[in-house]
């Protein structure tokens, strides 16, 4: 008791025992967190700067013709990006054409049709598709999907359309091996489905139940509720989610490298092998040097510009989408 009073007396007489908030440790902590946050900025600009630096010799050597040239000849040191750019865009667009309807279907099923007990397990299964590594998708695509695709789609369809105008070139496989632009598009579609579906589902869930109930109340069918109430409400976010999926499809590397066939050829048929920017970099980078290495870096630069424009649009549309 005496000790306690003594202590109180001591604190009374001395300067305030409490340190002023905002001391040195506090400032260090704040500075550390600020530096960490700035590191994110640094990394993003570092990526752009390093790729632009590496690709600069190729841009200087070939000029704007780099983008419009279709040649990729290692022996003669002639490099052009057009085949890879078109392959990248074509496979990504095919992925959207296939993947977006699937994702919307899954989102509608999960929010409108699924019985309550099944909702969580089904949603989790679809989301687990997102965590499967892309190299596994590549192996699945090459060893499981491609043989089936060649046998049951490429061969019959090629027979059917042979000699017909337009579809005869678009869907004709000269060598029905199962790999090609369309196969890559299908695998990419499967890979973007979990992202687009889970963002769309979250957006649909956020729409006030009252809106949905009143639509059902005046006798709307599920289709009408989805078409006239839910989709208009969530359309901006859904487009954002689709753009996010597009960003993933454009830059996806390993899965595409397995199934696209890796040919430097501009073909009118979606069954023919091609290559994307990412698959070409993955394929050739380790053996490349000199101008070839610079050209691959320049390809990376083009990929950077394309994906970042898409991702910026996506993020502006869905300001706060889910993580990964």
């Amino acid at each position, binding site marked *: 008791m005496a000790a306690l009073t003594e202590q109180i007396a001591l604190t009374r007489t001395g300067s305030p025992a409490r340190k002023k908030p905002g001391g040195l440790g506090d400032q260090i902590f704040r500075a550390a967190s600020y530096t960490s946050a700035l590191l994110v900025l640094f990394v993003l600009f570092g990526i752009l700067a390093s790729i632009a630096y590496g690709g600069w010799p190729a841009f200087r050597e070939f000029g704007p013709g780099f983008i419009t040239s279709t040649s990729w000849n290692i022996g003669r040191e002639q490099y052009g990006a057009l085949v890879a750019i078109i392959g990248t865009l074509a496979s990504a667009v095919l992925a959207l054409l296939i993947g977006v309807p699937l994702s919307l279907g899954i989102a509608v099923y999960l929010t409108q049709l699924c019985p309550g007990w099944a909702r969580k397990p089904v949603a989790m299964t679809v989301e687990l598709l997102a965590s499967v590594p892309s*190299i596994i998708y590549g192996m699945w695509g090459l060893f499981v999907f491609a043989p089936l695709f060649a046998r049951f789609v490429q061969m019959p369809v090629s027979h059917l359309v042979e000699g017909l105008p337009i579809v005869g070139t678009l869907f004709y496989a000269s060598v029905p091996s199962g790999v090609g632009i369309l196969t890559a598009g299908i695998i990419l579609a499967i890979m973007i489905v979990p992202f687009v579906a889970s963002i769309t589902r979250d957006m649909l869930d956020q729409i006030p139940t009252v809106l949905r109930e009143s639509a059902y109340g005046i006798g709307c069918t599920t289709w009408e509720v989805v078409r006239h109430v839910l989709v208009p409400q969530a359309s901006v976010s859904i487009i954002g989610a689709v753009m996010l999926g597009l960003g993933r499809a454009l830059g996806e590397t390993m899965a595409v490298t397995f199934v696209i066939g890796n040919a430097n050829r501009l073909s009118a048929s979606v069954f023919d092998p091609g290559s994307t920017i990412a698959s070409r970099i993955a394929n050739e980078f380790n053996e490349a040097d000199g101008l070839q290495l610079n050209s691959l870096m320049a390809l990376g630069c083009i990929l950077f510009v394309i994906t970042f424009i898409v991702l910026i649009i996506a993020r502006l549309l869905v300001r706060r989408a889910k993580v990964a």
Partner: protein
Amino acid sequence: MDAVNTLRASAPPLKASRVRSGRRVADRVLVVASTLATLLGILVLGSILLMLIIEGVKGFSPLLFTEPTPGPGSEGGGIANAILGSLVLTTLGILVATPVGVMAGTYLAEYGRHSKVADLIRFLNDILLSAPSILIGLFVYTLMVKPMGSYSGWAGAVALAIIATPVIVRTTEDMLRLVPATLREAGAALGAPPSKVITSITWRGASAGIVTGIILALARIAGETAPLLFTALNNNSWFSANLMGGIPNLPVMIYQFALSPYPNWQQLAWAGALLITVTILALSIVARFVIKSERAR
């Protein structure tokens, strides 16, 4: 006249029934299509797992965990060096990414809620989150591999850290924002400086969420292949503590062995694929349960 009358009498119900059947068809089509889409998603996951189990179990043996990868054309062998290398690379990656990510997330949630710089960083972090990992590989190649003259484990770890950081930043910020402001005010009212409030109140309140973010980041980088191709690469040697050379790791090993002409290499690739997929799916499921228990609390 008579005919017109009958027409009038019969027309409305006819029209109505046509509309009704059209509506019913549209509705049925939607129900069937969206159910099929969901079934397809489940089927694909099932088929991937089935493929991995059928092909992977064939190659499973204790030797997998004790023997290093064999050279071209030689028999037998395991993937022990690749497993160890992957563990080292992901551990190093997470060890670098965790403090940076948590601190950056803390800045965004605690200090920079209304600042322009924080808005910009938040936006760019979200973009980095979905940036193609191959570009990060090219960045680290230019930054580290080229100046140092060889592929190295350090470069691989840095590439993985760069991929993991945005995930951790994002989840940390989201989780810190869920901590009620009253808790912070209570801490500040007791005289705690901001750093003390953050470390002993908000971090503690959001700990389960932050851990979830780290597990998610771990799951994300464990299977990354593309950036490791240009940084850590691979070799068949037994794992050494020297991270200056190429480091054997599971993803690149799977990539190289799966496309090789040797049956025993392919077998090892399947076993590695099964191992890595099961690990990652388990991590993702664990992350879900951690966050669920947090929400229930």
